[in-house]
């Protein structure tokens, strides 16, 4: 009898540890279902999936950086830069697509190296380092294009943003799934992933164990920028033109997705699953808000409230700090 109770109790606790992080997502899904019945039609689901793809790709890069205890505000800069580089270097012709892609990746590499270099070599706080490089990237793009970037993205790339797999699933979400799988394997299974976590948790101990935290951190910033470039390519090929409106915007979606999912800003804590969760939640939220058709004000209020509520519901143990728990909490 006793064993039976304890047994079911432990199943319950185990269940709750699995379900707790999902609570926020469930909340959003239920809210969406109740208020907008059309939310679960195939068309809308496809839009959500597309959003998952486009937010998720950048969020993966962001996750890597967050795991090292950093943050990358320059991702949206890398995205905007990509569409400009693609358009300008190819002039819209498929023939030069490869060159355009390579150049975009090179530019992304440069941004990543700049971020990583500032953080590692100069010890600049990541928040400011990447914000400064965002301003710089925007500045370079504006100076280069005279402020009005424009041009065509080669049609040969349009499958990336507009295509569907099996006639239904948007290509971006497939790309995201593949990249997420790769990130999952890298983080959980490879030596590189182990080094990322070790560096994020304790760079000093990692360094003294022969890990080179500098290289790890730079690597993560580079990966983040390169994923930003991929996200930028998806975005550019989605619309097919350079979208000047995106050049100046600071897009916090990738950070929000990772952090809402439970990746800590202090480094080391977080998995690809967290990011996936946060990404889906954000994608549902953004689509739901459009479907809701509420005014701009109400929409912002709802998204702000839902983000805080969802994180609150994620069943973070309301724990009072202990002297033993020396690690700084996310607070």
């Amino acid at each position, binding site marked *: 009898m006793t064993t039976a109770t304890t047994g079911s109790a432990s199943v319950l606790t185990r269940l709750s540890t699995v379900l707790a992080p999902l609570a926020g997502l469930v909340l959003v899904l239920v809210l969406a279902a109740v208020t907008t019945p059309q939310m679960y039609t195939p068309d809308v689901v496809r839009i959500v999936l597309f959003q998952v793809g486009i937010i998720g790709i950048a969020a993966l890069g962001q996750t890597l950086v967050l795991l090292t205890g950093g943050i990358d505000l320059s991702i949206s800069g890398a995205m905007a830069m990509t569409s400009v580089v693609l358009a300008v270097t190819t002039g819209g012709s498929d023939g030069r697509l490869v060159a355009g892609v390579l150049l975009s990746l090179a530019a992304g590499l440069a941004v990543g190296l700049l971020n990583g270099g500032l953080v590692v070599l100069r010890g600049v*706080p990541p928040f400011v380092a990447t914000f400064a490089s965002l301003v710089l990237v925007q500045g370079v793009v504006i100076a280069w294009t005279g402020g009005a970037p424009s041009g065509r993205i080669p049609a040969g790339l349009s499958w990336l943003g507009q295509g569907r797999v099996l006639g239904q699933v948007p290509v971006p979400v497939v790309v995201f799934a593949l990249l997420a799988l790769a990130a999952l394997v890298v983080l959980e299974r490879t030596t590189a992933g182990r080094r990322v976590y070790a560096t994020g948790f304790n760079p*000093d101990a990692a360094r003294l164990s022969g890990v080179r935290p500098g290289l790890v951190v730079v690597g993560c910033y580079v990966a983040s920028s390169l994923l930003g470039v991929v996200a930028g390519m998806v975005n550019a090929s989605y619309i097919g033109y350079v979208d000047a409106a995106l050049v100046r915007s600071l897009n916090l979606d990738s950070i929000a997705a990772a952090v809402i999912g439970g990746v800590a800003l202090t480094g080391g804590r977080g998995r690809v699953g967290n990011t996936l969760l946060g990404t889906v939640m954000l994608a549902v939220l953004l689509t739901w808000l459009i479907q809701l058709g509420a*005014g*701009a*004000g109400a929409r*912002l209020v709802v998204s*702000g409230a839902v983000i805080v509520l969802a994180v609150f519901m994620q069943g973070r143990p309301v*724990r009072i700090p202990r002297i033993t728990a020396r690690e700084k909490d996310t607070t």
Partner: protein
Amino acid sequence: MTSVAAPRGSRAPRLAAFSGLVRRGGAVWVIVLALVLALTFARGTGFWNSGNIAAVLAGAAVLGLVALGQHVVVLGGGIDLSVGSMVTLTSLLTAVLVDGYPIRTVPVIVAMVVLGAAMGLLNGSLVSVARLPPFIVTLGMLYLVSGVALTVSATPAGRVTAALTDFSRATLGPVPAPFLVLVAAVAAVWLLLARTPWGRHLYAVGGDQHAARAAGVRVRPVLLGAYVTSGVLAGLAGVLLAARSAIGSPTAGSGLELSAITAVVIGGTSLLGGRGSLLGTVGGVALLALITNAITLLQLPSTWTDLVRGLIIIAAVAVFVVRRPR
């Protein structure tokens, strides 16, 4: 990053003196000084005429107040992304509520400060009582408060009184009145940080929450105080902004949060909390105000402004930021 205290590998003495300067927030002033010298050299009369000085100082007032609040929150180990939206809401409400009635001016100003405090209290409660990460809490508040502002009015609305506009344009010598408000706020925050138990506790909580708690510090009220301070200063900034614009706008303060954080960090304050100097933050504000001024004074090509801004910020942080404790 663990914060257990231990001597680190000692630096070369030359660097140590320099890092002392950085620590006390003096370093950013080196760049400010260099920029002032460069501007004097390039545009002597244009820069030093009282109108331009007034323009620089007045431009610094709103950002300065917001950065001051940010400074306090960051010292406590947090971050406040919602300051820009709080400025937006309070400035919009100032104009909408005053709406040209002189009798309403004072009550509305008081109400805005209270509103700022209330929003700060909400931030602070979510962070310290519900123990949610400040980044998420204040990001959510950023959306929420901007949404409220847009709901109040989607178009520019309301009108402040002549007294308020006059105040925003009044000067004492070359010093604009809004700047004097900033000076007073700096003095008040300095007093709070350097001369009250709460100030000590804030440094302690920012440096190591667990250690502070072990020493008997009440963490919650300290954090609440920090966010409330930030909210109050944002409320004041909102009133100043409304006075300057004479009218309320639902987007007035957008983007201020990033400028404020940048100013704080350029000034040598650690985003990890527990270390920072007010002098540095004020220097950071001065630097950002001067960059804007310099770009116009030097008549740089408009397409180069962001490039220049980015380069100066990178130069400032790369050269002058204290290395992260290892």
